[in-house]
């Protein structure tokens, strides 16, 4: 569990992954990392005014879930490397979180996308080119620099925000079925019946990669949840909304949700992260 103090709120965050009850391996990876850049001033003669904006910590919280594609080669490798690449970029770029201007925000989001593109190209290259099936993965990440949560999303893992009792999806599944429904070519029912509906239309290491990028300013009391589809296959949006509304800490919420996914069959690897802004 991590608790990041970021005035005026404390972020209570926790994540968990489970192999599930059917799969032999766990190809999911997740991480919850708080990013600090600090100067520990041992002594000096500068006034307090001079120290403001020069000394202190720049706190950011990085949340990542990645679901390696099963049925292909090394899905766990793809998900691990993708999560690690994002962590590596964010860890190395911590300096730029402090007082980001508009150009800085675009730079940050562009670089996050590039770090994902970098892993994608590397996976394809190692597999022997774009026509060979490479290790592939989804990735959903949030970089929280309070109050702003930047997100980048690929595939069918999900990010949700809970605000004033209502849970809303920040991401849209990048699946063939979702695209067909969006285009009006299929009804929701047709998508549910189709075998190809769950095929990823965008994945790191896949034949297409089209990251979605966005942001949201959080308010004290808001919660974020990231998960792989091992949760949403078994636990309804309504139930997720109920659990995120309980008076529990992040750890208890995550354990509750993962437990319910397992109780309902646990047919897939499941990973869940919850981050709560506690006033």
């Amino acid at each position, binding site marked *: 569990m991590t608790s990041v103090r970021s005035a005026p709120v404390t972020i209570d965050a926790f994540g968990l992954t489970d192999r599930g009850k059917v799969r032999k391996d766990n190809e999911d990876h997740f991480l919850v990392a708080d990013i600090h850049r600090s100067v520990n001033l041992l002594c000096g003669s500068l006034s307090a005014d001079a120290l403001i904006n020069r000394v202190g910590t720049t706190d950011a919280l990085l949340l990542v879930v990645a679901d390696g594609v099963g049925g292909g080669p090394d899905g766990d490798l793809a998900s691990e490397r993708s999560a690690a690449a994002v962590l590596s970029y964010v860890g190395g770029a911590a300096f730029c979180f402090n007082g980001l201007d508009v150009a800085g925000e675009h730079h940050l989001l562009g670089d996050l996308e590039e770090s994902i593109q970098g892993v994608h190209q590397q996976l394809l290259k190692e597999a022997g080119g774009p026509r060979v099936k490479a290790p592939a993965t989804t990735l959903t990440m949030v970089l929280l620099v309070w109050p702003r949560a930047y997100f980048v999303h690929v595939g069918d893992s999900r990010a949700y925000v809970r605000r004033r009792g209502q849970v809303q999806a920040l991401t849209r599944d990048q699946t063939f079925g979702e695209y067909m429904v969006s285009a009006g070519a299929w009804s929701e029912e047709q998508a549910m019946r189709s075998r190809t509906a769950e095929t990823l239309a965008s994945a790191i290491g896949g034949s297409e990669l089209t990251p979605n990028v*966005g*942001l949201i300013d959080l308010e004290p009391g808001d919660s974020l949840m990231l998960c792989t589809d091992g949760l949403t296959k078994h636990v309804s949006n309504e139930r997720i909304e109920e659990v995120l509304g309980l008076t529990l800490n992040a750890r208890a919420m995550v354990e509750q949700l993962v437990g319910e996914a397992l109780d309902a069959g646990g047919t897939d690897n499941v990973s869940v992260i919850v981050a709560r802004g506690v006033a």
Partner: protein
Amino acid sequence: MIQKKICMVGVFATGKTCLVQRFVHSIFSPRYLSTVGVKIDRKEIPVRGEPVTLLLWDLEGRDGTRDVNPSYIRGAHGLIFVVDGTRRETFEQAFEIRDAVTGQVGSVPCAFALNKADLADEWKLTKADEESVMARGLYGVRTSAKTGEGVEETFKWLAEATHQSTGA
């Protein structure tokens, strides 16, 4: 590299996301899914022979109880106010939003996209309404994310105007 932040602003369900999807990806989805927070897309277009990247901030639609988040608008080079031509109230509301956000971004080029022009039978805006946009010194054009009418034109006009207003 020249980058311009363009914000799509308006009340809910006026078609902001659809206009961006049409412009960037040449697709139209008839299904309504409300935007939460901001979705960011980008597209590079030539302006006076120079490549300009438009960073399109598709803001969640304003509803009755919540104003546009001023921090989303910060640093915008241009704004597109999106009106649902089949809901006349969204026309007035777009001007209200404009009045509210102009103080935050200053005098930047603004376009009014009078959207859903394909729904001719349900169109609620009069010719006088449409002329009043121009009379206020704003760029106004009928758009349809479904057919593509006016979409390229609006974004290209704004790209040109922002390029001109900043000299780069």
